[in-house]
């Protein structure tokens, strides 16, 4: 294909990228095709999905568009807020309240001729496999772990295997994932079925800071304890507006601030500030433009490598931290054989004592660092029949609620019983095999 067929300034505008793609080099990917076709591919064929149009998303869209990608979709259900403007550089004050995905797409399309960014102002869960199937690459710039896990699970479930049980390469959609918090961040490349997926390394996500209820209620020591007291206990009791707390409503935050201040002065605790109250109520994660720029750039470089095969991609995890100088560390995160999402071996869940109630089993699924379920619904396969144990929503919740207080034994669960788990963290169900230690049968003898 001659370069003359493509529009506007092609020849000069992409000169920088062309040097990398068209000139042979000693470190190139062994399977690389060194021709004009590669540039044609990223410009005219390759479709990329960017999930999130926030701090990382804005950067990703810009980076990808300036690396030559022209067909980009972006999903984000959020609207623009004032506190986004210190880093989400595609948004202006006049855009506050508008859809992030739409404003970002419009900006990119007007700044970079030929680039077509298609916005989707919705949740990722609103689309099914047929939507995700159209992309060559998915890049995530999310702050939600649940959403990351969901899309990861979706992409893994879309893989197909041929008659010999071999993974079909054409069914693989690589996923690149970026994450930041303050001056720290990470970028990783996930080739579903080949490299470690999000679920394989779930224990990398730090558990959320929680304060024990008895501390909040009886022995507060920190300003955070006083704020949690108002948020968790006092709001329910006094419910000043008869609505749940809205962290974006200044009158709510002010009410919590004043009550927390009262409680703090009662206990002689210093340090309750309006900023701290907001941080605790909204669970705010600090963020700065530079870290988002760095992590998005790293992700985009990997997208470019994957799409053009100009170099081997990152294998597979990079950590970044610029608190003290600039530190990065690259390593290969390992797959888990019994990963709930991409594993080949069924996972066992060990129950270490008899008399465990179903609600305790659910708590275990939520607290286990490698499972971290959110609101699991459980079905058991007993004697080849499926029995619904608990579903967290709808009328079926009422019907199954009584089971929560029953023990696993009473519900007919035995060593080796298969538990089918449905959770917000995945579009499909996962199967766990129960293992009782010591086995119930032995104990009952």
């Amino acid at each position, binding site marked *: 294909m001659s370069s003359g067929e493509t529009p506007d300034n092609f020849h000069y505008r992409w000169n920088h990228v062309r040097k*990398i793609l068209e*000139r042979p080099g000693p470190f190139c990917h062994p399977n690389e095709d060194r021709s004009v076709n590669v540039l044609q591919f990223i410009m005219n064929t390759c479709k990329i999905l960017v999930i999130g149009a926030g701090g990382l998303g804005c950067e990703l869209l810009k980076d990808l568009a300036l*690396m030559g990608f022209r067909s980009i979709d972006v999903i984000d259900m959020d609207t623009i807020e004032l506190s986004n403007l*210190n880093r989400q550089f595609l948004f202006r004050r006049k855009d506050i309240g508008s859809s992030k995905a739409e404003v970002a797409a419009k900006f990119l399309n007007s700044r*970079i001729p030929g680039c077509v960014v298609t916005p989707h102002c919705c949740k990722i869960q609103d689309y099914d496999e047929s939507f995700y199937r159209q992309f060559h690459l998915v890049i995530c710039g999310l702050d939600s772990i649940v959403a990351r896990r969901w899309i990861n699970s979706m992409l893994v479930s879309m893989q197909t295997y041929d008659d010999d049980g071999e993974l079909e390469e054409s069914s693989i959609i690589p996923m690149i994932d970026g994450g930041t918090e303050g001056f720290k961040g990470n970028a990783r490349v996930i080739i579903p079925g080949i490299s470690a997926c999000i679920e394989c390394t779930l224990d990398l996500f730090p558990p959320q800071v929680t304060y024990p209820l008895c501390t909040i209620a009886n022995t507060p020591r920190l300003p955070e304890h006083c704020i949690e007291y108002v948020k968790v206990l006092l709001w329910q009791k006094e419910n000043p507006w008869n609505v749940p707390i809205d962290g974006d409503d200044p009158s709510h935050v002010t009410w919590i601030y004043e009550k927390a201040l009262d409680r703090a002065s009662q206990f002689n605790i210093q340090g309750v500030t309006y900023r701290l109250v907001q941080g605790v109520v909204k669970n705010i994660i600090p963020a700065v433009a530079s870290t988002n720029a760095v992590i998005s*750039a*790293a992700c985009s470089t990997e997208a470019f490598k994957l799409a053009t095969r100009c170099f081997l991609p990152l294998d597979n995890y990079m950590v970044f931290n610029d608190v003290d100088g600039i530190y990065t560390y690259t390593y290969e995160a390992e797959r888990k054989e019994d990963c709930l999402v991409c594993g080949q071996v069924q996972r066992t869940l060990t129950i270490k004592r008899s008399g465990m109630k179903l609600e305790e089993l659910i708590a275990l699924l939520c607290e286990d660092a490698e499972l971290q379920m959110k609101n699991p619904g459980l079905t058991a396969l007993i004697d080849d029949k499926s029995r619904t144990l608990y579903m967290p929503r709808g009328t079926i919740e009422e019907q199954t609620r009584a089971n929560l207080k029953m023990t696993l034994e009473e519900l007919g669960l035995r060593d080796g019983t298969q538990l089918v788990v449905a959770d917000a963290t995945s579009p499909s169900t996962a199967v766990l095999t129960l293992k009782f230690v010591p086995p119930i049968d032995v104990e009952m003898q």
Partner: protein
Amino acid sequence: MASPAPKSPEQSEKSKKYDRQLRLWGDDGQVALEQAKVCLINATSTGTEILKSLILPGVGAFTIVDGKKITEEDIGCNFFLDADSCGQSRAQVATQLLLELNPDVRGDYVDENAEVLLENNPDFFNSFTVVIGTSVPERLLILLSKKLWNLDIPFVSCQSYGFVGYIRLQFTEHTVVETHPDNEIPDLRLDAPFPELKQHMDTVDLESMELKDHAHVPYVIVLYKYLEKWRQANDGRLPQTYKEKESLRELIRSGILTDEEGIPQAEENFEEAIKAVNYAVIPTVVPPEVRKILDADCCVNLTSESKPFWIMAKALRDFVEGEDQGRLPVRGSIPDMTADTHRYISLQQMYHSQASKDAEVVFKHVQQLLHQLNQPPDTISEKDVRLFCKHAVNLHVVRGTSLADECVAANRENIALALENPESTMIFYIMLRGVDRFFAEYNTYPGEFDNQVEPDIAKLKACISKLLVEWGCGPFPKDDYVHEICRYGAAELHSVAAFVGGCAAQETIKLITHQYKPLNNTFIYDGITSNTATYVF
């Protein structure tokens, strides 16, 4: 309710907009940023990406110096040059588009080559807080480096070259009070409690307590009690070896109350005390890095020109010398721990009030010093001194080196050492220096034009050989690297520029706010393998 509920502070627009970053560098850091004036030489993609990450968080003002006219290639990789701007001033268009990012920021430009500007207007750079240069040729780099070194203005030099990135910080000296370490060891003074603390802890009688109280004594006191016991049995020493620490842990464990059947009760405070043996039972000393600061010539021998940091350091030194055990002021904060409110708060207040007393002593020294130095008494506030004392154990000073010196004579041992590993990221440093020499000689970049790649490889190789001979280093790196650098032909890839730009912007913010430790002093990014390295030149 007796306490007058203070009116809720209605947050300003600004603090709402900057909320997410204020949680990192605070209001003081933000003020410093908003007062800063930065200059960018060359509005390359790397350059505008740096400015983007300075303008968004609200740097005071920026000036772009660039005499180039915009090419189509520039537009292809630079977000802040729009499609219609071909042929216009690069400084002007970039300034206009960057200004759209934040109405709080002022920006202007000079449509002139920086070298010409430096010649015609040698004082031009005097008023900047930081100067940033991207893709600055070696000859100008040396001129700028010397100029800014003499003016004591930090200089950040950056480059994105194909898949390789480079950042170099030049400053004469950089001081940091708030380093924000990721893990901070609490300052508990268990080896030598100050009198009020000792008295407080001595009045606690663990033996006579019921479980409810016993399990709610802060671990600091539990640890102190058993440490005292251990020391009495061991000639007053502190446990040092693993075995000794283990025996202290055993001793603490033996203090956990048991039920009627002799089974230990759950006492979290004791568990916390056992865990803390490792990091909390250490002699309270002045760390070597801080000792070096206190003994530095510019600390011991102040002049009327001395900066606040050094005056406070001298006052701190006077405090340490005046204190019979030679210790730093008490930090005044303790971590959260299992305890009832009253016991925890009284303990916390004890540390806090000692910290205030110590800081007051230091502040008195500061005032005396300011008087002796004929500096105005309000040069340093009590608040500054409190902050300084609070972070005394983490004070950080780096003395920099000049880029001009490096260009003339690089740190040979450094290079030679790295070259022992044929895959070392240092190779890209050598390659980029080779490219600089190539440009100085031929006034074009190796491989800039398609038909020149092959012949330029040989020429670049010759440039690098000469450099290595100059430095007395060897062996010559693999030809592959020369070939790779040559095929880049000065291509600036946007995602590499964005990576370098983000990093360089944050280093600039560190230099401006004097918070967090900056890079010392050269950073190389290898985008091929996604690795990075830091070297000192």
